[in-house]
């Protein structure tokens, strides 16, 4: 099975405390730690496991600047066979539809049976997979937490729905799936693995090479634009307990007693 996984380089929510810049309208980006979007690691792991079972190859692709190459290498160190970087100044400021259009152009150049994305990334929109599928008129399922490869024409997928239940579907290939965390246990990538793929050439394709519709990419054509970042004033928030640990615990215990916790 030929599988394409769309991945993204994102600020790591586990490694950063996000602060606004001095103007108060953007993130303070000076010391941000970036990594692969968490959901994407599950998608790549799933792709590798499928190929291990039925043969084929895994290609990872991302839209980004030259720094995004590092996330492709990381996923190749996991076991993806190929990486492709889609990069062009003209892509900057694209909205979800623009990113999906760029990926669509790359997908059309190949012959993939299965296209995977993470269920969501840093912006929390969860939109790319569904958009790509609609643009290509391929069937789509989101929030997939189980894949059973069948006869090569269809696969069975489980979708995570409310209340911990799972919705089972049969879906025809080729198709697009967005992968939910927990579907597998992504393998660990060590320094040795990264070194192994350090010199593998990763092709870079721009707007012209891809033949992307210029009418939907870039900031000018984006229908949805981020204006600023801010930290909302949500009222008082929690009463913060301060002082020595002993004092904090004494106060907490009094509160727990009054609220039925003790």
């Amino acid at each position: 099975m030929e599988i394409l996984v769309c991945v993204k380089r994102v600020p790591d929510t586990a490694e950063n405390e996000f602060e606004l810049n001095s103007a108060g309208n953007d993130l303070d980006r000076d010391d941000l730690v970036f990594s692969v979007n968490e959901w994407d690691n599950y998608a790549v792991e799933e792709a590798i496991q499928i190929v291990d079972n039925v043969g084929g190859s895994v290609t990872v692709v991302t839209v980004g600047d030259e720094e995004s190459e590092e996330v492709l290498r990381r996923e190749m160190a996991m076991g993806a066979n190929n990486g492709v970087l889609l990069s062009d100044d003209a892509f900057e400021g694209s909205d979800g539809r623009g990113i999906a259009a760029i990926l669509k152009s790359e997908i059309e150049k190949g012959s993939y049976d299965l296209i995977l994305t993470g269920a969501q990334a840093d912006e929390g929109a969860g939109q790319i997979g569904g958009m790509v599928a609609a643009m290509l008129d391929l069937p789509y399922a989101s929030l997939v937490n189980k894949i059973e490869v069948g006869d090569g024409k269809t696969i069975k997928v489980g979708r995570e729905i409310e209340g911990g239940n799972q919705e089972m579907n049969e879906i025809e290939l080729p198709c697009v799936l967005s992968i939910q965390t927990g579907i597998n246990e992504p393998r660990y990538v060590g320094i040795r693995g990264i070194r192994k793929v350090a010199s593998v050439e990763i092709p870079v394709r721009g707007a012209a090479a891809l033949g992307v519709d210029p009418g939907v990419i870039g900031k000018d054509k984006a229908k949805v634009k981020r204006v600023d970042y801010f930290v909302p004033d949500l009222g008082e928030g929690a009463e913060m307990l301060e002082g020595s640990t002993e004092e904090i615990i004494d106060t907490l215990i009094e509160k727990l007693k009054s609220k039925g916790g003790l």
Partner: protein
Amino acid sequence: MTQIFAYIPHHGGIATDIALEYPAAAKKIDAAATLTAVVTGEGADLDKVADGLTATYKEVIKIGNQALAYPNGEVVRKALVNVLDPGSIVLAPNDTFGMDLSPGLAIKMDSAYVADAVDIEGMDGSLLKIVRQELGGAVSTHVTCDTSKGAVITLRPGAFAPIETGAAGGTVVDKSSEAGDLTSKRRFIEIVEAEVGDVDITKSDVLVSIGRGIEEEDNIEIAEELAKALKAVVSCSRPIVDAKWLEKSRQVGTSGQTVKPKVYMAMGISGSFQHMGGIKGNPFIVAVNKNPKAPIFQVADVGIVQDILEFMPELTEKVKSL
């Protein structure tokens, strides 16, 4: 005049809560807009939900078809594209169904797409200003959405104040005949119900709930000790289940269990909206997290900035000594 369609999911003929939240969002988009409810389904359940919605909506469009008996996002999308007017604004919930339906719907309607709106600040010309969150709720953003060729917007459930069910005296318009071809390359098979675990976290008055801050599987014992001292049980957030450290039945959140304890001890939990969506009944929430900017501190009653791995054992000892 702006035409807004509100897609309303339902279960067994009962509309989901979002049905009462759409009117507030629609008013924020354009107070003069026409708001029309849209329901899809089949048979008596569809009739029941459509009739029920006439108390809240002046117009209710129903689209009935055997292929819509189960809400398969792929099939619902085809029906909506055929029935809804191009250029309109379509609202859907940002839940597991809305996430399945909506991005592709925006493409097929050639309109803009904004996911997971938590607030709407209004229209300036054709630019709608919307509030969203990024990075797991750590920061908020304003986005502008060009609605000149329509828009699909999903709303975070619970983010817009519900209205009272009124006496709108609305009418139901049957547009089933306009649904068009509803064949799909994705077929619904069945729902696999969540497995029942060894511990029922929904029955406990006090929950010691752990998140990423627990760091390692072996540290869960520290939370178990505290839970024992408090006569509580241990629940968790999603990453703990993803790591297979606890069973899925211990997970609190929209994709896990809904709990109604008296006291919720959030230990090393950042507090994503999906997690908080599983906590009902307004419990007393204690949050301990070493990150002072964790979103959980905005919704907790009491916050403590400490490492849970050091704090929990001390609290356990103190509780035991009482």
